[in-house]
């Protein structure tokens, strides 16, 4: 029963959603809108569940002094500090208070400082490290080993050159035309083929889930 009810629910709602898409009837629209409200509620519960799971896992790690448990202390401290400053702030009269329903917390100077001077530099640093790894990878990987690799190499150079104002407008214009063709024709054709493939794959997987063949969402394959 524990397995059959979820499978039945997925089947009923899955089939309904497929047919609903093609049915403009007002009842069908009403049920669709009603179901859409559930997504909103599920989203909020999923977030609450995520936060609870993070606290639970981190607490367990700290309690049992598992490997790298110090990071969990930082995670929990950051979570609670940001949460505290996010729901407290100063109103128009400069009085401090708790704000659960409005955005005063987001303008709290401490929240802004943590966001602007800790979170932003950390994330941007991680992202900017890509420049170093990409350049090293480009040096090692972009080699004219065969015809296809040479085509890739030349295409990459052309696309990069079009961004480069050092070579003047004439070269830039020429490169721009070639790069535009590369992006709009071969790139777009390949991407469309991939997208169509992904789309068909998604339909296939969705059908397997709806028909109860694929049951990975229940925690078992």
């Amino acid at each position, binding site marked *: 029963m524990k397995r059959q009810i979820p499978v039945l629910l997925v089947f009923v709602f899955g089939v309904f959603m497929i047919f609903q898409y093609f049915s403009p009837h007002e009842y069908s629209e009403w049920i669709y*809108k009603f179901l859409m409200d559930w997504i909103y509620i599920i989203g909020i519960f999923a977030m609450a569940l995520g936060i609870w799971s993070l606290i639970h896992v981190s607490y367990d790690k700290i309690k049992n002094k598992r490997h790298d448990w110090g990071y969990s202390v930082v995670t929990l401290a950051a979570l609670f500090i940001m949460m505290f400053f996010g729901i407290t702030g100063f109103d128009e009269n400069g009085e401090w208070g708790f704000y659960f329903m409005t955005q005063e917390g987001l303008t709290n100077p401490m929240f802004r400082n943590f966001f602007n001077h800790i*979170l932003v530099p950390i994330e941007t640093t991680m*992202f900017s490290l890509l*420049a170093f790894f990409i*350049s090293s990878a480009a*040096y090692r990987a972009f080699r*004219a080993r065969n015809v296809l690799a040479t085509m890739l190499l030349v295409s990459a150079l052309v696309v990069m050159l079009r961004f480069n104002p050092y070579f003047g407008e004439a070269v830039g214009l020429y490169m721009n035309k070639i790069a535009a063709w590369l992006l709009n024709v071969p790139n777009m054709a390949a991407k469309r083929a991939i997208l169509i493939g992904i789309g068909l794959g998604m339909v296939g997987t969705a059908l397997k889930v709806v028909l109860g063949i694929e049951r990975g969402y229940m925690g078992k394959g």
Partner: protein
Amino acid sequence: MTSHLMPPLALTLVDIGRILSLAVIAGGLLWLFLRAIKRKEVERRVIFLFIFVSVVAPILFPTVFQEKATPIVKDVFDKIESLPPGSVVLLSYDFDPAMAPEVQPMADAISRHCLVRGLKIIYMCLFATGQGQFTSTLENVIKPEFPDKVNLVDYVNIGYKAGNEGVLNVIITDFKKMFPTDVDGVPYDSIAVFKGIRSCKDLDLVISIGGGKPGIKEWILFVGDPGNVPIASGVAAVVAPLMYPYYPAQMLGMLGGIKGAAEYESELVHHYPQFKNSPTPALLMMGPQTLAHLVIMAFIVIGNILYLLERKKGRKR
């Protein structure tokens, strides 16, 4: 006597810095090129050092290039230009701080453009951190540059809602259901910007700024296509090639990476000279990006010289 004949040297410290840094980078690359001819590999740390110098030098000695908008960027600009004052544009901040250096300039420039044209803006986000990024636009663009623009009348921030595509699936039919109030708790019906707006179908333009998931793809799939809503985007450079298949039928235009943002900033300054003194971070960032690209290209060439020489040596054996 000679001083009268020679033109006066008008080099500033910044110019000298630019010339010196370019000379150092060019000299270093030439040295590596000569080493490559002798079949000597370049160490990873040397590549890192060159990238570091090529990024830092244009930051210390700013180099700003004039950008000309490419058609895909111009389409977004022209669409906003074509909207009559009072039209409602939805700007979705679908990004986090990691993407912010690339896409925040787009959000700021588009906000400037919409506000100067007298368009009304609905700000929202599908990323929880997008809310914080909007505060940056509010503090750095709207409040200092448009003090006459009034919250709830000229723009409104409805914030973040959990649910990813689910949020879009609801607002395509009913905005109020998902956003009964703005972030300050002001009821939907009291917000002037929402006058005449029941769902996304009533919007004149939707622009998603981001590059992750949920992002522009979800906006196209769940709002643009089913609701026939004009959609444009500003995305990180790594995502831009993935979005080309949607242009121009399903996405009217796109700002791709810093280059796209710089083109938009340049176009904005060109059409609205009052923004000449406004910050143009993307145009400034094009300097480091351009030089870093050149250095990467030089390393690709060096790598290929090494490879070809090695292959030649292998054949001889």
